[in-house]
């Protein structure tokens, strides 16, 4: 079958090694928050998630061995999701905007017990 042919001309991937890297990254992402520095947490949590996703997509799903358009399609849908986020966040992510406020949310935020952390600001 054609995809076998595709693989043939590429150097075989050492899957166990990739797995090892992924596990190591997992350990880091768990350890990260223990430092208690929010920026570090963000990087170790989400930065590493992206790295892991990339490693899996490349080495396990072999997306780079597929026709180029496969990558384009996946990237496009991901971009659409960011587009969606950008279009919606101004309404949903804020409790106050130009000409409107969300009293219920403000009240909840005020009533909430003292906050330790959270990825925002």
């Amino acid at each position, binding site marked *: 079958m054609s995809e076998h042919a595709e693989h043939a001309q590429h150097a075989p991937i050492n899957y166990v090694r990739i797995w090892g890297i992924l596990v190591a990254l997992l350990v880091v992402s768990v350890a990260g928050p223990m430092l208690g520095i929010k920026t570090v947490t963000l990087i170790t949590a989400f930065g590493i998630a992206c790295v892991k996703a990339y490693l899996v997509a490349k080495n396990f799903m072999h997306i780079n061995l597929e026709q180029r358009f496969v990558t384009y399609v996946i990237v496009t*849908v991901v971009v659409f999701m960011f587009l969606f986020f950008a279009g919606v966040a101004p*309404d949903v992510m804020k409790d106050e905007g130009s000409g*409107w406020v969300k009293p*219920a949310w403000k009240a909840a935020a005020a009533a909430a017990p003292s906050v330790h952390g959270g990825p925002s600001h």
Partner: protein
Amino acid sequence: MAEHVAPAHHEAHAHHEESWVRKYLFSTDHKIIAMQYMFTGMAMGLIGAYFAYVFRMQLAFPGISVPGFGLVSPAKYNALVTNHGSIMIFWVAMPVLLAAFGNYLIPLMIGCDDMVFPKINRLSYQIFLISALVLVASFFVPGGGFGGAWTSYPPLSAKGQYNLTPLGSTMWLVAVGLEFVAFLLGGINFITTAMNSRAPGMKLYDVPMVVWMIVVASILFMCSVGPLLAGAIMLFMDQNLGTAFFDPDRGGDPVLWQHLFWFFGHPEVYVVLLPTVGIVAEIITVFARKKLFAYRTVLYTVFGTGVLSFTVWAHHQFIAGVDPRMAHIFTVTTLLISIPIAEMMFIYIATLYGGSISFPTPMLWALSFIATFLIGGVTGIFLGASGADIYFHDSYFVLAHFHYTFFPITIIGFYAGFTYWFPKMFGKMMNETLGKIHFWGTAIPVNFIFIPLFITGAMGQHRRIYNYENFPDLANNPLFWQLSHIATIATVVMLAFQVVFFINLFVSLRSGKKAPKNPWLANTLEWTTESPPPHGNWAELPRVYRGPYEYSVPGRKQDYWPQNEPA
């Protein structure tokens, strides 16, 4: 539902000799599945049309007992308009334009024997049928059908104590969800088939426009429906598990649903538009004996429209409490989308230049699509322009606008495609006289339905209100009532003329004259096989040597040049 579908199958049954249960209900043949989609869609269309008749009567003559229905209570009215919208878009436009024509045409036009995944194809129809049954069942549950508009905005749709149809709204949501799953399965089939299974020699630019359009539509659907599926899950839980995704008092936000909905809802417009645009391309080229003017440009306009359609969704929410500053961005993107669409229409008109145009029924339908859709297109500008939308939002102007797009797309587009491919589908020619009567009886009244509604909308008539006698400024305006009456009478007239279509359908099926392989002298591959095509479509699958629109090529005696004819 059942009694609606049954005639469809009996009809098909009349022309093949054997137990239709296995052959027509559990067949994996793309042609049979196309028929299942088409006749289910038509059956649902009848339901939707009946609803339209009922509430138009109520609007023009408030409080009368509508013949064939009875008194229209506010609750019933809401359920009627809600389900009219849902049915016409999700259970008529999509199954007929996308699924039926997609299933029938893609394999035949790209020269292969079936869809790549026949069983998934069958599964997609079965899920679709279940979704239709669930929806129809929801009209009869305690509390009646869902009445929160097809956009189903929470909190109204989320809480039984607000919409008073707890069961109906959940069933509506489940039905819509199942329908989406069905079309995801179907869409994957369409895309994969068109990408991978083209006849040998058929390059990308040799693919007939309608196939391109259906594939792009499927891709748009697939890329846009996800958030709404997620939203449907969230709304379902809000309805039944007491979560608060859309309940502001408990940390949710109702506006989120509007975004989830319209992020899908706007591309959806193009999902149903594109198949029709493709059908029209096939028809006008054949009957003008012209090559499609600038094939590639049309293709690029389609891609442009497709990408842009993901950036405009919030123009449905200008006054819905979204941040005013965002409106500027969405106005710009919305008006930009008029460029590719205008370009596309111009190219279609340009295609007619220098043609030798004949006017059989399919051509009349195709041309009336262009003529009518233009009205829908230009009136969209009023609504895309944020400033003007403040006045027109949710008024009958909007309603008239999108009916001027959806009517040409769904009804005219369907009749165009159906009359054009009827000989291929059933091996009989349709009756031209009846066809033309039906055409004029549909294409003329429709303007008398919706032109008046533009005006009443501009007068400040707003949507989904069962009786305008409660609004003195409107109720005391005789013009308002005159226009309402015109619209309603035109509706009844137009619906009455649809009977002609069904007469024509049955007459032609019984005693229509036998259709040759290629009655319209067209180029595309489906016309090179028998009418109707056998299982497997061709004894020997065709090979392609040229593009689909090589009509009136200089130096050829014949004014057409089939794609599979060796040079």
